[in-house]
């Protein structure tokens, strides 16, 4: 992934779909490097930063959020058309986010339960990643994304090189920082072996199992891990819930969650 032609001070746009804004705020969170980034790009559209917005086309678009309405589909197509590079950021944009819990249920029932006037709600049956609707040049995972990884993607775009964003397991980061494995040494359920690295193995370092925020790793043998979680005493319901959080919509996690959501069947 790189800019087709090397552009000096390329234009950067940041877009939001169904999301919490946490990922785009990671850009503002790059306090030490923010000025250098702002010096290297022209921020053309970033409404969390400024009301002043420019028209496209844009050299790089960062897209946060999932597609949940018919209007979203139209908007993402227009953004794709106006962008040389389109990078999706965060679990919502790359797998549908926590709101993909609706994909396991009847969204009509949800709206009827939550809203006094569900007839005013116009929404799609499923929450889907951006890549289901338009071609995506690079997906940056995480709930939220890691700001160092975001900087790496931006600097890679600027230099015209591939971003160094590994697809391996959280375990590699965990062992690299010298954390004692919470699954082996404490029997704590941990999704690290099937989850993509990027957070720096934050949760095991504070004695928690990995929650799978970065979605499935390149090779995610979820069925073997799920069997082991049962072996260490995790209930079927908890195994199902573990795979059904921020990346509930990613196929590997979804399949495992469904396998364990009924009592005593499967695997």
């Amino acid at each position: 992934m790189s800019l087709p032609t090397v552009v000096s001070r390329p234009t950067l746009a940041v877009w939001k779909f169904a999301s919490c804004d946490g990922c785009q705020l990671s850009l503002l969170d790059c306090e030490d490097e923010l000025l250098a980034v702002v010096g290297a790009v022209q921020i053309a559209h970033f409404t969390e930063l400024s009301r002043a917005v420019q028209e496209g086309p844009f050299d790089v678009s960062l897209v946060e959020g999932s597609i949940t309405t018919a209007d979203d589909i139209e908007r993402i197509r227009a953004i794709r058309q106006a962008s040389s590079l389109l990078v999706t950021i965060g679990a919502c944009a790359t797998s549908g986010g926590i709101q993909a819990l609706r994909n396991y249920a009847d969204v009509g029932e949800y709206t009827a339960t939550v809203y006094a006037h569900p007839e005013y709600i116009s929404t799609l049956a499923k929450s889907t990643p951006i890549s289901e609707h338009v071609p995506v040049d690079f997906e940056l995972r995480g709930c939220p994304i890691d700001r160092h990884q975001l900087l790496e993607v931006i600097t890679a775009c600027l230099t015209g090189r591939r971003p160094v964003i590994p697809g391996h397991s959280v375990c590699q980061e965990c062992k690299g920082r010298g954390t004692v494995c919470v699954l082996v040494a404490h029997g704590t359920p941990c999704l690290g072996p099937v989850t993509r690295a990027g957070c720096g193995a934050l949760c095991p370092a504070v004695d928690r199992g990995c929650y799978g925020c970065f979605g499935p790793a390149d090779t995610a043998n979820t069925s073997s891990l799920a069997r082991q979680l049962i072996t260490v005493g995790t209930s079927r319901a908890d195994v199902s819930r573990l795979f059904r959080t921020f990346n509930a919509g990613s196929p590997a996690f979804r399949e495992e969650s469904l396998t364990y959501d009924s009592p005593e069947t499967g695997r």
Partner: protein
Amino acid sequence: MLSHMDLSASLIVDRAGLDGLLGALAARGYRTIGPVVRDGAVVQRQVSSTGDLPQGWHDEQAPGHYRLHHDDDSSLFAWAVGPESPKSEFYPARSLVWRTSSTGDVVTLEQPQQESAPAALIGSRPCELAAMRVLDRVFAGGEIPDPCYRDRREGSFVVVAECGTPAATCFCTSMGTGPGVEDGYDLALTELTSPDGPRYLVRVGSARGAEVIAEMGGSPAQPADFASRDAVLENAARRIERKLDAGNVRQLLASNLEHPRWDDVASRCLACGNCTLVCPTCFCGAVSDTTTVDGAVERHRRWDTCFDLAHSLVHTGPVRATTWSRYRQWLTHKLSTWHDQFGTSGCVGCGRCIAWCPVGIDITVEVAAIAASDGAVPVHIESGGDRS
């Protein structure tokens, strides 16, 4: 060279003698790195006195399982290896190889120097000493030594602690690497029990060791102390039940590259890489170049694993796309082609890959399963499926 049987050079010390040793090493400018209990495991950290060591801590290990428990005994070394090994001291998990900076048209390349003081490893186990020898061959045995490894390893001091309490995952007796050790250390300790608490037989393995032992106090070791050591080691060896047929395994794996057991293990393996990361001899690294927003370029090296899809990535895709091929790569390299490449086995029988595999895959069981139906399997015919 001093003989390990040089009785006059060997001492019996109590715990105060070990504190004297730590003090003498610190006074010589070493960082003293030893075993401590953190987060439910014995790991390696800087230690300043025997009060930091795992007194009364004991481990229970099994495939995919590790637990510590505490007794009120005053042993300091009655545990078997934990997840860390000397590898992380000499080959850091992540290191900067070089960085550039530029002023105007001039680009300068800077290589970081080894800044921290040399390490004195306290309580390394005989299998870990064997692993250091393997890594020495890999990193420093060729024509172009690895500077990062060499700089850290060269000045180091090693105090080995022989094993009295191996874990159920240990199989050093199969690999000829423990539970005792005769050379390759500066000083060797054997923890001996006595009514007044543990005493330590200290043997000298180098001139530097001889200098330091002079500051430990204690009294000359007697033949009875050596007999106690023999008893400790014999007892330890008897307790080790796990076996690997080291004489046969090289050929066994080489002639069973299409054995169905590889499919079986691939269904269980998570390709998480924990086995290779805890292995004291696995040395693979990934090197990557990155740029910073202000235009500098950095080259980093980090631990890599053959279980990572990207490890075998070439321009058309990964060479080993399946877990089947990656597990086979790990086991065949470790136990078979390592001999071709480095003249030894890559395995020292420490059992870490067994205990710290989240799903408890056990290399001794996998090898035995292949041996049980050795050659009974016809050569696999490519069927169009991904067997890469």
